[in-house]
């Protein structure tokens, strides 16, 4: 069985417990794929470069990053650049033959680019163009399986490979898609959510997905540790889960749903701050969704 471990973005640089635990799993013969994000670090680097991170609100109230061309450059620098390289080195030090990948590598994470986004701004609905984001529709499972079969442990991150059909791109200033004389669709690195990337990978591999975060699962009452939802198996459980999930946990629950619909065996949402966070999550110390 394969396990996909999503580790938190902000602390992606020093997730010692998770890395040691991944090493134990790999040493015992498990196949593991590590996935990480790092949105906070992108914002920090944007600010160090004198740029302002931009977030927009959609009409239904979801807040997300607006990824212009410069932000995409910084995104590449921070995620497949600094964070992925450091995380891969961290796994080497645990004895794991880790190989870093972004969603661009071999089109690991592929789908259409969305260059336009509907936003809510000053009480107006608007179309913002020039966004570099996309929707993952396909996972190159063959690339992961090739590496796993060779004894390597993939460490994957976003961006994804976005196919720029240019249907939505109208503005002349949106030059990121390259040569104007070349009308065919082009691939370019675009933003995607790392939880959903992990979900897509777990789905494609039929894997168990462990989403490590800073809480031990989803709680009916966040202030009462005894109210963790331990297992989600029935439609009623799902409805309880969706009622209980708040804030950033909402997105994790949606990612869990995508993973299971895509073919994942199970999804466990658990804390990264445990001794052996992956194995204990797999052993049930988590909100486990089936």
């Amino acid at each position, binding site marked *: 069985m394969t396990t996909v471990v999503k580790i938190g973005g902000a602390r992606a640089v020093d997730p010692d417990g998770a890395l040691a635990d991944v090493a134990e799993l790999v040493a015992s013969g498990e196949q593991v794929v590590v996935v990480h994000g790092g949105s906070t670090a992108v914002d920090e680097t944007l600010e160090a470069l004198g740029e302002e991170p931009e977030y927009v609100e959609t009409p239904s109230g979801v807040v997300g*990053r607006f990824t212009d061309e410069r932000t995409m450059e910084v995104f590449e620098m921070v995620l497949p650049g600094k964070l992925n390289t450091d995380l891969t080195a961290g796994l080497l030090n645990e004895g794991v033959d880790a190989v870093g990948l972004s969603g661009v590598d071999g089109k690991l994470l592929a789908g259409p680019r*969305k260059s336009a986004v509907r936003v809510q701004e000053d009480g107006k609905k608007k179309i913002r163009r020039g966004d570099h*984001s996309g929707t993952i529709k396909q996972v190159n499972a063959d690339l992961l399986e090739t590496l796993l079969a060779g004894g390597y442990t993939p460490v994957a991150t976003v961006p994804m490979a976005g196919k720029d059909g240019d249907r939505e791109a109208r503005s002349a200033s949106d030059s990121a898609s390259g040569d104007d004389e070349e009308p065919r669709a082009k691939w370019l690195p675009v933003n995607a959510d790392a939880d959903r990337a992990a979900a897509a990978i777990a789905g494609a591999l039929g894997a168990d997905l462990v989403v490590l975060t800073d809480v031990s699962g989803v709680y009916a009452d966040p202030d009462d540790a005894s109210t963790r939802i331990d297992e989600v198996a029935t439609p009623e459980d799902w409805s309880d889960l969706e009622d209980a999930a708040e804030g950033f946990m909402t997105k994790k629950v949606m990612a869990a749903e995508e993973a299971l619909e895509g073919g994942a065996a199970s999804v466990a949402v658990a804390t990264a701050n445990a001794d052996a966070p992956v194995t204990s999550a797999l052993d049930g110390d988590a909100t486990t969704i089936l």
Partner: protein
Amino acid sequence: MTTCTECGADVALHDDAEAGEIVDCTTCGAELEVIDVSPPVLEKAPELEEDWGE
């Protein structure tokens, strides 16, 4: 004053309308994107899946 691309009815833009803004046709209810303001050009606003990145 310009016309709805969907039903042909007159559509009036606010004075502070800006390119990219979505206005609703009061006659047929279509969502129209303001492509340009002077002269006003409207187009059917694209349906876009809600999504988010990292």
